[in-house]
């Protein structure tokens, strides 16, 4: 049925065909360049390939506003999808309502776990909670001492005991927290390689012993291609809840975050951007997306072009379409707006709720001039209710607009078809469906 509708719509508007659409050909250069940008930003080889392929396949056929190029548009679309992918799903740290919140911090050596634990403790304290830091890194020289110093600095107690087994420390810390009335337990663990089986067993054991509310995987933002392997291995073993991205105060692009996000599908919950204990922030997906992709100028250019398109008008139009009240007067207003900013096809594609399905309705912008003239020659009454347009009225309009009676008849026929299609679409809940389909699924 849908197929039928869009075919009809296309044939109805066949005459007026445009060419400003994203095609494999007109985006190939940009796609190639973006792929290199992603690889230079340390996005994993396979992830970059997959991501670009999926996004560009979905984007094919999208109409391009006349003020921008297909390359610019695809760049913006990729940026949007990147932001979406990096930012989707909840970023809030879970808290345990029925007992102590336990946060287990894991990751490779030197990624920034211990420092992050200190920062998190400080944050919790400021939020009125009673945190406890737990020193489970019994391997790295002076790791316990490091955490103790950080604890002192943020005025949070640190639990540590002379013990050769990190499991025991983790276990005892829970009891200790109870005694000290601490409601938030942050467990710092030793850095470990994902291929170190013994050490991976240790962290799994700790998880089982303390049953953490959240497990956070800490990653150095300078990490390269191998991030997918380590993250995946950690995730397979402990099924962590979120990612912490560190050392963002440097100039690394942070593409590893995209790799990890794509491979394990877990949200990035914090970014760490300094050695000082207040250098911790919530994660902002659009910042990281533009850090990875660069091209801020292109993105703002496209944004500007898209913003020229009047959102209010679009919403009104959508409402009218939904209520089957779209008339020639609305059509005329749309046409004038389009002339201001680009092609009709791009307008249609940008209308909320119209999206992909109407993209097949190609409209030649030059034909718009004619259409505009014809509608301008109609009275208000005629525009609202085209049924009154008898032969003599049509002739008058043709003369008034400098077109032929055939032109007028064609427009009326097309408009009639469009209206009845819109009606059918509404009956089928078409617009609602399309609204829900707007977002791309990557995983």
């Amino acid at each position, binding site marked *: 049925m849908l197929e039928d509708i869009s075919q009809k719509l296309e044939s109805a508007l066949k005459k007026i065909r445009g060419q400003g659409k994203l095609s494999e050909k007109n985006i190939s250069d940009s796609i190639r360049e973006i792929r*290199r940008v992603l*690889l*230079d*930003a*340390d996005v*994993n*080889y*396979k992830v970059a390939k997959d991501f670009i392929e999926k996004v560009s396949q979905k984007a094919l056929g999208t109409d391009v506003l006349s003020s921008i190029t297909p390359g610019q548009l695809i760049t913006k679309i990729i940026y949007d999808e990147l932001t979406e992918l990096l930012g989707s799903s909840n970023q809030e740290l879970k808290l345990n309502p029925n007992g102590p919140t336990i946060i287990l911090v894991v990751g*490779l*050596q*030197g*990624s*920034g776990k211990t420092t992050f634990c200190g920062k998190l403790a400080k944050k919790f304290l400021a939020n009125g909670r009673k945190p406890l830091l737990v020193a489970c890194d019994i*391997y*790295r*020289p*002076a*790791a316990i*001492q*490091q*955490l*103790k*110093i*950080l604890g002192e*600095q943020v005025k949070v107690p640190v639990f540590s005991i002379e013990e050769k087994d990190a499991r025991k420390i983790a276990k005892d810390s829970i009891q200790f927290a109870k005694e000290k009335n601490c409601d938030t337990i942050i467990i710092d663990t030793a850095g470990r*390689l*994902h*291929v170190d089986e013994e050490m991976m067993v240790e962290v799994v054991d700790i998880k089982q012993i303390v049953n953490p509310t959240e497990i956070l995987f800490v990653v*150095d933002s*300078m*990490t*390269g*291609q*191998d*991030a997918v*392997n*380590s993250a995946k291995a950690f995730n397979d073993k402990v099924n962590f809840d979120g990612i912490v991205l560190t*050392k963002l*105060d*440097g*100039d*690394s*692009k942070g*593409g*590893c975050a995209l790799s990890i996000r794509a491979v394990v599908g877990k949200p990035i919950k914090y970014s760490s951007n300094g*050695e000082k204990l207040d250098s911790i922030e919530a994660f902002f997906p659009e910042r990281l997306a533009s850090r990875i992709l660069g091209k801020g100028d292109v993105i703002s250019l496209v944004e500007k072009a898209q913003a020229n398109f009047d959102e209010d008008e679009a919403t009104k139009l959508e409402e009218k379409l939904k209520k089957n009240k779209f008339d020639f007067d609305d059509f005329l207003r749309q046409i004038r707006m389009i002339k201001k900013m680009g092609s009709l096809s791009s307008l249609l594609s940008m209308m909320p709720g119209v999206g992909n399905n109407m993209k097949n309705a190609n409209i030649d912008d030059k034909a718009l001039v004619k259409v505009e003239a014809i509608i301008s020659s109609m009275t208000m009454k005629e525009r609202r209710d085209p049924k009154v347009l008898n032969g003599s009225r049509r002739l008058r309009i043709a003369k008034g607009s400098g077109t032929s009676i055939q032109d007028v008849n064609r427009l009326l026929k097309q408009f009639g078809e469009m209206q009845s299609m819109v009606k059918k679409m509404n009956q089928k809940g078409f617009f609602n469906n399309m609204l829900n389909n707007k977002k791309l699924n990557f995983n």
Partner: protein
Amino acid sequence: MNLLNKRRMKLFKNFNFDKLKTGLTKTRQKLFDKISETFTGKAVVDDELIDQVEEILVSSDIGIDLTDKIIDDAKKNFKDEKDRSPQVFINQLKKSLSKYVIGSQEKVVEFDSTKKPYVILIVGVNGAGKTTTIGKLALNYRKSGLKVLICAADTFRAAANEQLDVWAERAGVKIIMKGKNADPSSVAYESVQYAIDNNYDIVLIDTAGRLQTKTNLMEELNKLNRVVKKKLEHAPNETLLVIDGNTGQNGLQQAKEFSKFVNISGLIITKLDGTAKGGIVFQISSQIDVPIKYIGVGEGIEDLQDFDINQFVDAIFNK
């Protein structure tokens, strides 16, 4: 002490060669199988094969630009080969890769007995493995019969002194440290003075990790370098940049920026006992023109090896 009079010498043996091999090869197995399959029965290097090679190289953090160059290079040479077996093409790739590590063999000077104390400054970004590497180096130098002093010039990080102190004890060498937040230059200055006064052969200076974008911290490093030089004309004799083997393309930025503030004479790549390949060092070595000296293959004090270009390149392709 006859040996030590030689201008150039190799002090270290490879302790844990197997560790590098197992670490570096695990994930390669699958890819290599694929390559072999593709090669089988094919006399030409087709696009699919090139894609797979590209994947291997890029996945090793070699970088897309250098990967392209290496593949082009290998393709050209492959054309002239009579034998178009997979092994020959891989050998071509290895050969062109090796060209991007500058003459490491010739440039390695591990100790020059005419310059005493021989001062080695260790620098790098946060968490790269500097302190651990100092422990490993100290042990090796001491085992070679040299008198080694460790200088704790990371006065910033929490428990940095305590950490390095443990390593000094493990290596069985003396350490000089001051209180937290002391001026790192002054610790370095005093250490060099102490080494001169007490006839030390080697001084290893640990520094705080710093991101190359932090100008003030980079200036601090530059100052330390000047202060050391002022104390001892020929020092620091070496400045080694420690690069985490997991590092991606940012590694090149690190090397370039650090070179602006200190005179980098060599690289150490750490954490190669994992699955990361450390491929960024090809760009680093060729662009800032320094050799790779050692690799870290574990957290133990003996987990340091000489860098061997053939092993390293083999590990990228080996099954």
